[in-house]
């Protein structure tokens, strides 16, 4: 549905050139929810704005639904933009218009009659659950409600793609979740391809199928969300993942010689990573019972990403060295990644 080929964007200022996006190539399939994550200044916002040419890339090609965006004239570009919905961090609703008028706004030149527009807007407001607010002005709405109106407006022209530019960054966690649920529903019910950018790994975890991690204008890692969570490669990805759990705390404790992670002679401190399919195995009890290895859990977490559980356990193993080695080998044989933190 969307293809970026070697897209670069450089902002020229008098003093220096800022390379906001550097040679990014991505392929986003139809019906996907695709996330782009990065810290602020990583170039993700510029990248998403390149997709509908709000930012014209310095070089590279952008193909949306078969159209080569950079080669279109103004009129053709406007026509394609109607099929690419967009929502923003600060909602960007029109203050002088009611909720109904805001949602009806993109339908002005659609050729629909007044009744058809009214019916369509009502349907959209039902979808975002705001029918009773149709005559309210944006100033009377909460942040979450404003974003719902913005989503309804973005969907008015039956787009194939919805771009979300930090759409939940100005919302509290609970509202964020409800907006993400709505986006997921939109994706599933209407089959709209969603591209969203965010700096919150929790957002990616919640709804994305695939994710690209950006740092300093480049995509450093890209792939299926479960793989990325299970086997992050780039340091920045690991940092993002650790923001969603307290795992990084354990490593900090080890570094600071905290009493909780102190081990005595003959003990091993290990980090076990469970992937899909082996979280249900009775691994630890097997180690204890059959292999005479003492296990004490000091940290445990299970992430559920798209119904796939990914587990992390930090365990102190104790016993004879050969038994511990056996137990580690046994865990590895069962598809569990083992990282020995200290021994």
């Amino acid at each position: 549905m969307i293809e970026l080929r070697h897209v670069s964007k450089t902002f020229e200022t008098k003093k220096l050139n800022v390379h906001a996006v550097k040679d990014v190539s991505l392929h986003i399939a139809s019906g996907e929810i695709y996330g782009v994550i990065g810290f602020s200044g990583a170039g993700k916002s510029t990248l998403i704005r390149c997709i509908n040419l709000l930012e014209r890339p310095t070089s590279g090609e952008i193909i949306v639904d078969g159209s080569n965006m950079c080669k279109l004239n103004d009129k053709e570009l406007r026509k394609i933009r109607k099929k690419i919905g967009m929502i923003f961090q600060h909602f960007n609703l029109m203050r002088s218009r009611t909720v109904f008028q805001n949602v009806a706004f993109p339908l002005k030149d659609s050729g629909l009659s007044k009744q058809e527009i009214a019916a369509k807007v009502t349907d959209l407001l039902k979808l975002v659950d705001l029918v009773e607010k149709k005559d309210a002005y944006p100033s009377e709405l909460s942040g979450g409600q404003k974003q719902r109106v913005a989503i309804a407006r973005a969907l008015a022209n039956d787009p194939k793609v919805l771009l979300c530019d930090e759409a939940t960054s100005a919302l509290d966690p609970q509202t964020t979740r409800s907006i993400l649920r709505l986006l997921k529903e939109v994706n599933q019910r209407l089959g709209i391809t969603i591209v969203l950018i965010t700096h919150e790994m929790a957002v990616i975890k919640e709804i994305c199928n695939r994710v690209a991690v950006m740092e300093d204008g480049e995509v450093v890692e890209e792939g299926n969300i479960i793989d990325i969570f299970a086997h992050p490669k780039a340091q920045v990805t690991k940092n993002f993942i650790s923001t969603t759990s307290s795992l990084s705390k354990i490593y900090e404790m080890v570094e600071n010689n905290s009493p909780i992670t102190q081990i005595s002679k003959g003990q091993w401190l290990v980090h076990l990573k469970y992937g899909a399919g082996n979280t249900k195995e009775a691994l630890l009890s097997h180690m204890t019972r059959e292999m005479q290895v003492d296990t004490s859990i000091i940290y445990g977490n299970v992430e559920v990403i798209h119904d796939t559980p990914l587990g992390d356990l930090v365990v102190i193993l104790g016993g004879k060295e050969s038994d511990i080695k056996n137990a580690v080998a046994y865990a590895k044989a069962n598809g569990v990644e083992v990282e020995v933190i200290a021994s």
Partner: protein
Amino acid sequence: MSWLSEWIPNVVELADEFPAGIMQTLQMLLIPGAISFVLGVIFGVTLIVTRKGGIMENRIIFFLLDKLVNLFRSIPFIILMTLLVGVTRFLTGTSIGVAGALPSLVVGTTPFFSRQIESALAEVDQGVIEASQAMGLSPMQIIVRVYLRESIPGIARATTITLISLVGLTAIAGAIGAGGLGDMAIRYGYHRNMYDVTYVVVIIILVMITLIQTIGDVIVKKTSH
């Protein structure tokens, strides 16, 4: 009526001249006001869309218009009137009376109005403009449906301020032969020491300004959400 003759004798004497004076002032207010409004909106919009980062960025047009507005704003009105005598004669056939004052009033008011409109339009959130572009609106549609429509309260405020300052200009114009209330205050009140005429003129102008301000406030209130 006798107490009126006692309190404001000259006004009673000149009572016949007041309606004409008020009419002339209203003409000098409304005709240039309407023309300046149209021009001010056109120039204000042009400044906004051609500025750096605007939806129709154009350095040359912006530069020229920006400097032109500054130039005319920096000329004191009374000097502007004398500078424009030739143009005024050419346009209206006379340089005195209400007709003679119209061109200078338009030229004197439009730059101020343009700046006021420009700053009213600048209040429109850049994000809303961006959202409209993302929705596939053309620049002209964005100007009409977003910039102008979203800043109706700001435009109403700008119009109120401009009309009030225009009242001041009509008085100056009056002083150099355009007629109207300002002319009466100068001719009778100042030159012939008929202070009561000045007081009554001030009261009438006060009423006008209060009316303009009140109507402006109502429009702003009705259109702000």
